[in-house]
């Protein structure tokens, strides 16, 4: 089933002559985990914002084509309606906190309060969500006093609690330290294993290699490549062309191929690389 569909979608911010997104056609199916990579300024963040409808309902500009999420037309629908279908997580952990809640629990409840969900239902979902993200110890702490990584987990949970059909994350670890990054990727991995449809915009190729099903490369507002994760992330020429650094493991296998030490497909994950080295050493 198609959850998200872009049809000839173009977007030009007001005051600009050239579109930042150009004639995009893209379909994401239920349960897929899609990773999005590309240069700074390729239009990745704008694409994320358009799925929730921030483009065109929050930013002014020229909207062409169609975006359909879960059967709803983004251009003609309202932001509050779209927020029940699309969960969007942003870069800055602190700026995403609503400021309306003095505890993590209240912060999580914020979206449900806005939707007018009954209190007993809110309590139930908050409890489940606290458990899912593993923040039991912090549930009555002030979210502003948590570390960046934990704040980002709260941010993810606070949209997930609204039970969206697709979770879109726009560089969720870009402002985090390694520990925070690890916390967030552990959570993302858990969500992926639950079959939640995810679109993840990130620069972290090593992490995408571990759990993305499919990769999209964006370049100059267009989709430059779209395919299964393994074939895209091991295509060194393609990655280089679009300014993406392949995983060091892929580079290693590529260089070994050049030196005639290896003649099988390039490595992507740690498991691949270990197997490759074992085989080479045995020979």
């Amino acid at each position: 089933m198609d959850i998200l569909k872009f049809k000839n979608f173009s977007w030009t911010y007001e005051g600009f002559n050239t579109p930042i997104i150009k004639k995009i056609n893209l379909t994401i199916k239920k349960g897929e985990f899609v990773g999005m990579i590309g240069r700074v300024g390729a239009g990745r963040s704008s694409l994320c914002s358009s799925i929730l409808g921030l483009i065109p309902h929050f930013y002014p500009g020229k909207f062409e084509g169609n975006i359909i999420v879960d059967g709803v037309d983004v251009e003609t629908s309202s932001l509050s309606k779209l927020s029940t279908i699309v969960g969007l997580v942003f870069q800055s952990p602190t700026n995403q906190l609503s400021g309306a809640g003095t505890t993590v629990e209240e912060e999580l409840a914020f979206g449900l309060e806005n939707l007018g969900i009954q209190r007993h239902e809110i309590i139930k979902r908050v409890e489940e969500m606290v458990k899912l993200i593993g923040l039991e110890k912090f549930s009555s702490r002030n979210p502003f006093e948590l570390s960046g990584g934990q704040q980002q987990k709260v941010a993810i949970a606070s949209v997930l609690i609204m039970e969206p059909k697709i979770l879109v994350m726009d560089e969720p670890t870009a402002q985090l330290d390694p520990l925070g990054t690890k916390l967030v990727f552990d959570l993302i991995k858990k969500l992926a294993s639950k079959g939640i449809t995810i679109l993840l915009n990130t620069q972290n190729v090593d992490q995408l290699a571990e759990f993305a099903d499919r990769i999209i490369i964006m370049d100059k507002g267009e989709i430059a490549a779209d395919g299964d994760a393994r074939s895209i992330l091991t295509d060194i020429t393609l990655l280089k062309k679009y300014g993406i650094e392949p995983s060091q493991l892929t580079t290693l296998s590529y260089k070994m191929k050049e030196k005639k030490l290896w003649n099988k497909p390039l490595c992507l994950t740690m498991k691949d690389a270990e197997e490759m080295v074992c085989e080479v050493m045995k020979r």
Partner: protein
Amino acid sequence: MPRTILISYIERDSLIHKLNPLTKLTALICVIILAFILGPVNNLILFALILPLSYISKLTWDVFKPIRYLLIIFAILFSIQGLFYPFRLTPLYTIPFTNIIIWKEGIIYAAEISARLLVMMVYGFLFVLTTHPGDLVNALRKLKMPYKVGYIVLSTLHVIPSIQMQVETIIDAQKSRGLDVSGNIIKRLRAYVPLLGPLFIGSVQQAVERTMALEARAFSADCEKTSFRQTVFRKRDRNIIIATVIISVTVGVLSWIY
């Protein structure tokens, strides 16, 4: 990073904490009106009554902390009113070797204002410390205050420290480029100009990001909002409101008659 939050709610399990915010708000308004009606001596009695209340709320000394900020205001009040009160008649004291006179009427006037300020400050503080901001907003929403106004009140409390931190970073960044922020006031003001641009852009950006994050959570949904926190209006809230109003009116009328 240290954060300075000026005033904030302190969680305690006390009778006063459990009261409905509206009950406390009514009581606070009564006290403020009384503070204006009563003279300095009676106001001091009213001030003394905070002691049992702060004890019941399990916040004994926290309530008095802001008084130190008031001391400066008192000093200014007493010196200015003592010397320049417009309706001065009775000299109280002449500073030796000068002809500077301190006037009795000025001192009494300053005492009146100070006692009022003192009462309003401690009771106001008791209110803030014992009332969860979310509960207050919820209670006010029941009185038809717009949801967005409530949100602004609430979030400001949290957003101020993060803007404060950003200001510090921006000042540090420019100092690191040789910006000298010492010297006389004009020099200092001029030095702060470079900070305005980044500060403005930074706070606008923060606001934009936060607004988008709010939209991602149905902030503008056009339906009846619910609340995770519950504020109950008990029988004792009703009784306390009635009692407070009756007592206040009686005290007010009595002090007006005599």
